[in-house]
């Protein structure tokens, strides 16, 4: 030993009082799943920054159209005001008809965000319910599995094109087309998760205690799915926004008169050689949104994995 034991007086060699409760406390560590998830998530400055960026962009895209009187569709009759460079009055410049790109960008962002959020909520909501039923109700399994096989076998893009081609172009067309395939993937995921949870020992314990189904789902299953669903929602948003851009390009997007990021990008693209800023600004905002959601979704998925907690 490093230290001479003689330093210790004989008075120490007496029985010590024993406290049973203290013995119970020796091993304990404070832990809460959600606290750890958020602590892990917020540890990275990149995550905080991107999350803040999302909040700012969402707030701006919803606040701007309310606060500003500028009409994104107002056409200038004066040709000198067409294709104006960014400057005072028009921070992002104007397009070929003199429409203010700054205003159009925020209106477009709002449309695209709304699209993304609506699709994410529908996908995740329907997917969650369908997945929970699929996992719990054994009789549904066969039918749902076949449905999944059929839908999963067809490339999503093809499905998207077919549906948007048949229906009239519009916001709800895109929502319908994207959701009609999007939900089943989530449902499948939820179903697999539900099946493993369903047979987990703590669920058997609940069944032994006579816990009713609704409480089993709300207390035993859903809390385990929340993090996955948040992640799915976060990743569905950039995908939906991207799909709108793609559909706009092949001519199946939102009507031209609707201001959306997809339409702005497709319009800006046509004049890119002469007026690059008409593409640049909407694109930057668009990329900021999709990249932020993508990274935040992935980081959240990492943070919510209990293996990454202490």
């Amino acid at each position: 030993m490093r230290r001479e034991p003689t330093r210790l007086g004989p008075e120490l060699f007496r029985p010590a009082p024993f406290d049973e409760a203290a013995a119970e406390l020796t091993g304990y560590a404070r832990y809460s799943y959600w606290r750890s998830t958020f602590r892990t998530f917020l540890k990275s400055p990149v995550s905080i920054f991107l999350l803040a960026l999302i909040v700012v962009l969402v707030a701006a895209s919803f606040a701007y159209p309310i606060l500003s009187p500028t009409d994104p569709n107002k056409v200038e009759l004066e040709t000198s005001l067409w294709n104006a460079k960014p400057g005072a009055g028009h921070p992002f410049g104007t397009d070929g008809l003199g429409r203010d790109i700054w205003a159009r960008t925020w209106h477009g962002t709002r449309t695209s965000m709304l699209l993304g959020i609506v699709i994410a909520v529908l996908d995740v909501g329907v997917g969650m319910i369908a997945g929970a039923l699929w996992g719990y109700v054994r009789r549904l399994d066969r039918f749902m599995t076949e449905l999944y096989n059929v839908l999963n076998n067809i490339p999503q893009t093809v499905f998207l094109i077919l549906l948007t081609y048949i229906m009239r172009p519009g916001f709800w067309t895109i929502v319908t087309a994207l959701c009609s395939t999007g939900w089943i993937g989530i449902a499948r995921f939820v179903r697999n998760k539900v099946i493993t949870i369903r047979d987990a020992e703590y669920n058997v314990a609940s069944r032994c205690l006579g816990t009713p189904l609704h409480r089993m789902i709300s207390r035993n299953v859903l809390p385990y799915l929340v993090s996955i669903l948040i992640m799915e929602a976060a990743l569905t948003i950039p995908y939906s926004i991207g799909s709108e851009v793609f559909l706009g390009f092949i001519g199946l997007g939102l009507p031209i008169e609707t201001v959306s990021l997809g339409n702005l990008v497709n319009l800006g693209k046509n004049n890119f050689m002469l007026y690059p800023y008409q593409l640049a600004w909407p694109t930057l905002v668009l990329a900021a949104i999709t990249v932020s959601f993508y990274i935040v979704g992935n980081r959240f998925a990492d943070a919510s994995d209990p293996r990454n907690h202490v």
Partner: protein
Amino acid sequence: MGSYILKRLGQSLFTVVIVVISVFMLLRLMPTTGYFTREDYVNLDETARTAYLRNLGVLDNPVVQFGRFMGGLAKGDLGRSISIYPRTPVTAVIAEKAPYSIYFGLVSIVLSMAVGLGLGVSMARHKDGFADGAGTVYVTIVRAIPSLIWLFLIQQWVSGVMGWPMVFYSDRPVSWILPLVSFSLSGIAWYAIWLRRFMVDEENRDYVKFATSKGLSKKRVMRSHVLRNALVPLVQYFPQQILLTIAGSLLIESIYSIPGMGGLLVNAIRQQDNPLVQALVLLYAVLGVLGVFLGDLLMVFVDPRIKLEGSSGKAA
């Protein structure tokens, strides 16, 4: 094993039948304008249009139409194009376009696999290192930003900087470079990110620790255990990836005016050429189903565990 393959084959056929029926039914909902060339539509009056449609058979009972459609399908007849290549059989149009898509697809598959799998391996080997970071940035950009945007920017900038033509000319090889690179970029990201994920998953397994304890070098453990096992779940998706890649990319073929199937579909949609859209959608869907089927089939050979499961009917 044989019974498993038969069962999967049956499933795929079932899916194809469902797909054919749905595509057919859905396309009955298409705007009937899609059956006219533009000048015809303008020139004809309402009764003439109806007569024309009746003549085409579009107004018949759907069941009759479906029978006729299936009859045609059996003979390899998918109808005739209307607005883009008036009165040309759809099959002939596709046959003319297919080689371009297949050529670009094949080359890009080789490129994406070589680069993507290599990138994935080095990302997994040097997890949290430079390669991993750089790879992640690349993958994030490619996957998060809508592909139209970066495809367009590459076309504009790189062709400007390098002085290459902005569109495809079949007789100028230098104009093939950008489409090929574009074709491969998202493939590379796909292979890299999934291989990395599967490899990282495998690395934490007990058998890897045991292999290490046997004295195998990290390199060898990575190659003969981790990489090998990580490729197995990926292999399942190879056939579908390959088939859909050689079927052409809608965006790239359109942007670079490559006369392939992807660009054809975009044009067909823009010009509302119903028979062409119908045929192409059907083709893509069938390729998708075929890809999944081949993927499952491949798994039987790659994963020895499947055979047993398959025989007890658990594989689905």
